[in-house]
């Protein structure tokens, strides 16, 4: 008879489960448990528990209520305009994509039967036959051409206009075949098509007051800023799922109100629980948690084209002054993984496992600051509630700085208008970047010389040419090598300090099953509705 250690909590269960799904072996896990003082015997029983949760078989039936954290009258069912988690959850329930990413970041076909290419530039997409929209219309190539082409029209207001621009030709070959020609080779197209915004809608759709998709659920009620009710699609094209009869989704913006609603049983899923509320959920037998490190992060951006970031020594000093462990442990309450100043998170299969995070070394930092001649001068860091946890991270930096005579100032500004007024503009400021599925999207969005969101104004010809080369490279091994080098370059040369990759915690009623972590974000990359089932 083995006993569960007394200080073992639901949060630890979730951690172990998360590691199993990320491919950790039994040996790795036991090592981790031993390190935290748990004997092998007790450890074994804990692993069994987590393993059982991973392997259970789904049952059909039941309804749930799930609450996200943000919702307003701007809620939309138009995939192109989707901007908040609430929109993502809804479009995932009502529509499908050509491809989807599974929990390891691998590409799975959804509406596409196959996505193929010889040169990474001209792509042929074969569609599954017999897929129908909720209004009975059959899915054809025209719908796909319409859905993809509309992102190119700026009047659509698409969030992925910049990414879609590389598709120079989108055309119908026959009823179930679409040809996409890219302006330059890009081996990542199948992953790009898995982005939420590239959901497939029926050709000619202009009214988004309801959703006509091919998805697992039919839109029963949609009131922007209030709620949506999704009911099971009886004609869903996949053999498995959905399991639930209906899902009501709305947002409770206040974290404690959301947690209370979960505790009282009024909702079964509370998305994005603040780590501060973990205490309330721990030890509750009716509640469990699901932890995902998808890779969103808050970073400190030092512009390389302005004082004081133009001094290389200053950047070096700042990188050594970040107390990453303190930030991970106290600011983010352990719900984070330590970052090494580059944007590809450990959840990504191209993550450079050999690139170590820089150690916290105030003396070394002081030495660099002295060389740069900035010791004693007041240096403001612009932070805001708009960039999650940035105020706390800035405070930690300020504290570390004051101990070596470095006068860093916490310059806190309002969240309203932060992204248009301070982000990318101030010499030293914080940013917040949401998870992106491929290194190429991250690099071309954030680090290419002409990148739109080049937070530190990093410019390197070598990096730019490697980026283009890697994009068209179909050989996985070569590609990985290039991405590893590029991560190293960013970590050493750019002015972006990425102290930690955030974990996302979702609170669940204990009878909610089937949630796995996903590299596209919490709540299974917002796609939980299709996969979740209720224990009878």
């Amino acid at each position, binding site marked *: 008879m083995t006993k569960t250690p007394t200080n073992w909590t639901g949060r630890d269960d979730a951690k172990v489960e998360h590691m199993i799904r990320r491919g950790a072996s039994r040996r790795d896990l036991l090592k981790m448990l031993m390190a935290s003082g748990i004997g092998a015997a007790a450890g074994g029983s804990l692993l069994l528990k987590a393993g059982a949760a991973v392997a259970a078989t789904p049952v059909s039936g039941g309804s749930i209520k799930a609450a996200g954290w943000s919702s307003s*009258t701007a809620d939309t069912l138009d995939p192109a305009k989707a901007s908040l988690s609430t929109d993502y959850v809804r479009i995932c329930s009502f529509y499908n994509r050509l491809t989807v990413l599974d929990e390891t970041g691998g590409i799975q076909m959804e509406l596409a039967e196959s996505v193929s290419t010889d040169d990474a530039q001209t792509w042929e997409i074969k569609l599954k036959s017999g897929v129908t929209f909720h209004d009975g219309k059959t899915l054809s190539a025209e719908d796909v051409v319409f859905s993809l082409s509309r992102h190119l029209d700026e*009047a659509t207001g698409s969030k992925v206009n910049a990414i879609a621009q590389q598709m120079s030709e989108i055309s119908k070959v026959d009823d179930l075949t679409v040809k996409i020609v890219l302006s330059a080779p890009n081996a990542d197209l199948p992953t790009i098509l898995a982005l939420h915004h590239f959901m497939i809608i029926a050709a000619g759709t202009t009214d988004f007051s309801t959703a006509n998709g091919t998805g697992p659920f039919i839109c029963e009620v949609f009131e*922007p*800023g209030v709620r949506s009710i999704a009911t099971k699609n009886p004609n869903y094209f996949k053999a498995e799922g959905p399991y639930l009869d209906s899902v009501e989704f709305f947002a*409770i913006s206040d974290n404690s109100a959301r947690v209370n609603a979960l505790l009282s049983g009024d909702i079964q899923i509370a998305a994005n629980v603040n780590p501060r509320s973990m205490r309330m959920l721990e030890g509750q037998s009716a509640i469990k948690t699901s932890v995902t490190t998808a890779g969103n992060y808050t970073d400190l951006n030092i512009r390389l084209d302005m004082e004081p970031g133009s001094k290389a020594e200053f950047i070096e000093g700042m990188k050594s002054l970040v107390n990453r462990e303190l930030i991970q442990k106290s600011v983010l309450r352990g719900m984070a993984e330590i970052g090494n100043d580059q944007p590809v998170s450990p959840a990504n299969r191209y993550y450079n496992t050999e690139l170590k995070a820089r150690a916290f070394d105030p003396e070394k930092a002081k030495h660099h600051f002295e060389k740069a001649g900035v010791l004693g001068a007041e240096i403001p860091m612009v932070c805001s509630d708009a960039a999650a946890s940035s105020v706390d991270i800035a405070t930690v930096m300020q504290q570390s700085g004051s101990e070596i005579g470095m006068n860093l100032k916490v310059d806190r500004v309002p969240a309203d208008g932060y992204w248009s007024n301070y982000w990318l503009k101030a010499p030293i400021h914080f940013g917040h970047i949401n998870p992106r599925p491929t290194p190429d999207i991250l690099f071309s969005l954030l680090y290419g010389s002409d990148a739109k969101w080049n937070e530190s104004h990093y410019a390197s010809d070598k990096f730019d040419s490697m980026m283009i080369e890697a994009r068209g490279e179909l050989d996985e091994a070569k590609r990985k090598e290039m991405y590893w080098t590029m991560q190293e370059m960013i970590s050493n040369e750019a002015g972006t300090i990425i102290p930690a990759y955030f974990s996302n915690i979702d609170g669940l009623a204990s009878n909610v099953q089937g949630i796995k972590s996903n590299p596209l974000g919490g709540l299974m990359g917002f796609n939980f509705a299709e996969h979740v089932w209720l224990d009878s």
Partner: protein
Amino acid sequence: MRHKHKPWFLVSQRLGIAFLTLIIVSFAVFFATELLPGDVAEVLLGQAATPEAVAALRESMGLDTPALGRFIGWLLGLAQGDLGTSYVNNMTVAELISGRLSNSLKLAGIVTLVSVPIALTLGIGAAMWQGSLFDRGISILTISVISVPEFMVATLSVLIFAVWLGWLPALSFGADTSSFLEMLRAYAMPVITLSFVVSAQMIRMTRAAVIETINTPYVEMALLKGALRSRMVISHALPNALGPIANAVALSLSYLVGGVIIVETIFNYPGVAKLMVDAVATRDLPLIQSCAMIFCVSYLSLITLADMIAILSNPRLR
């Protein structure tokens, strides 16, 4: 002759002023909205707002005409009973508001039904037995209720009644309201929270108004003539205190339509206060203006109603 028309003249004057106030408020709201950084196209595109994308979206949404022109257009539409169309989701403002306004009015109505009788009874009672143990108890209670912020009352009641005891649902909207009992359960917590806040004010104002009239010579006269204390208060003092009491009630109730954002957030109750906050966050001018007009109209009508009661209940004006 002129004297006889005086109350009605005063009432119509009040209505005229109310109308003028509405116009002034809508201009003030317009200029305040214009001062906010960013517009609806920038907000919708968020981090993806490049200058070209913003310009294209503005054009497709019809936002490329000057803001003042759009505002005047909205005002003219309003004169014909058209609240306009939301910039953000192309739904008509009337459609967006109708459901949520009825939610807000329902909540406000229930709170009024619960709190006004209680507040008046307690307030008049406290005045009648001024200085008694009952009066002092009421005073301490109301002061403490006024001092506790409503998010505290709301959060604590959720914690106690929904999480620990499990008697009431934590969310009011979307809870099962099929039977009368279920509806009572769903509304219990928001109604109690709001009643706490509004009745404390009303009790204190009512007590003060009644005590003031009790101290006037004519009420003293009634007492000297041998009238019972209850008769003295109810038929001599109360009619004269009616004006100030009506004003206090109106002020407290006007808060219930637009000011209950905290209760709406904590109990996830979709009312107009949250709608207004959303509208401001997305810079959705027609929706902001329409909400502002609703708040203003409800405030003005309550206050005007209270003024009319004061005018009509005043024997010198009647």
